[in-house]
């Protein structure tokens, strides 16, 4: 494996790890349900993306072929993450989860 690939993998893994950690910190620190939803679905988008990219680089520099399955995993993740976030938010809205005081605007009932 070339030196360049190794540095790239290290950098991507560290970036991915840092963003995933920040997402987890956000989950603990943010004040209400809706804001907490942003932590894990968002910061982790980049986190998982970076980790997947490092995996692609690792396997393609080791085997000499591009790891299509990793790319597919990333694509599926990016397609399903917004759906689950949306369902969580919708469920919270229907249950009338309380929002933090300085929230502007209101969820609606219908």
């Amino acid at each position, binding site marked *: 494996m070339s030196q360049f690939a190794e540095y790239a993998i290290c950098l991507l893994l560290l970036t991915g790890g840092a*963003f995933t950690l920040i997402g987890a*910190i*956000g989950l603990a620190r943010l004040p209400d349900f809706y804001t907490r939803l*942003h932590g894990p*679905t*968002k910061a982790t988008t*980049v986190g998982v993306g970076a980790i997947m990219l490092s995996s692609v680089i690792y396997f393609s520099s080791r085997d000499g072929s591009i790891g299509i399955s990793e790319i597919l995993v990333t694509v599926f993740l990016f*397609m399903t993450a917004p759906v689950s976030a949306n369902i969580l938010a919708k469920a919270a*809205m229907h249950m009338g989860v309380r929002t933090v005081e300085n929230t502007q605007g209101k969820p609606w009932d*219908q």
Partner: protein
Amino acid sequence: MFDRLSFPQPWLSLILFVIWQFLSDGVSGASVVLGLILAWSIPQMTQAFWPERPTFFKSWRMPAYLMRVIFDIVVASFQVAKLILSPRKPRPMFVAYPLELEQPLAITILASTISLTPGTVSVDVSDDNKILLVHALDAENGDDVIDAIRTRYEKPLLEMFE
């Protein structure tokens, strides 16, 4: 009778078949057979969820749109990370976004984009598909959020689907 044996959405079937070949470890007899079964059964099972077929859209504009979304995800992730780590409290806000898009598939893509880009989650779409409720993590006023979504994401989608 023959309905049950057909491929209601040929493109979806083809994509599923190709994806299955990539996911399984090399193309073999087993992966082709299983790929065919999946390509037939998944569109059959999900057919009820497509009340009307999405009309053809200008798919060559998709890559440029995806590049923009990926770029935005990276930029906005740093903003959200900074906000999470800073001691300042976020200023969350519900924004009712008036939709210009009309097709369900286009609205789904827009809502997913909004949810993927950090700082905003789409919460609900009104029953008449006119208003999208968006939750912003940190916003000063709602008009800025609406303007940003309108110019960056909805305009290109409108061009794609008109």
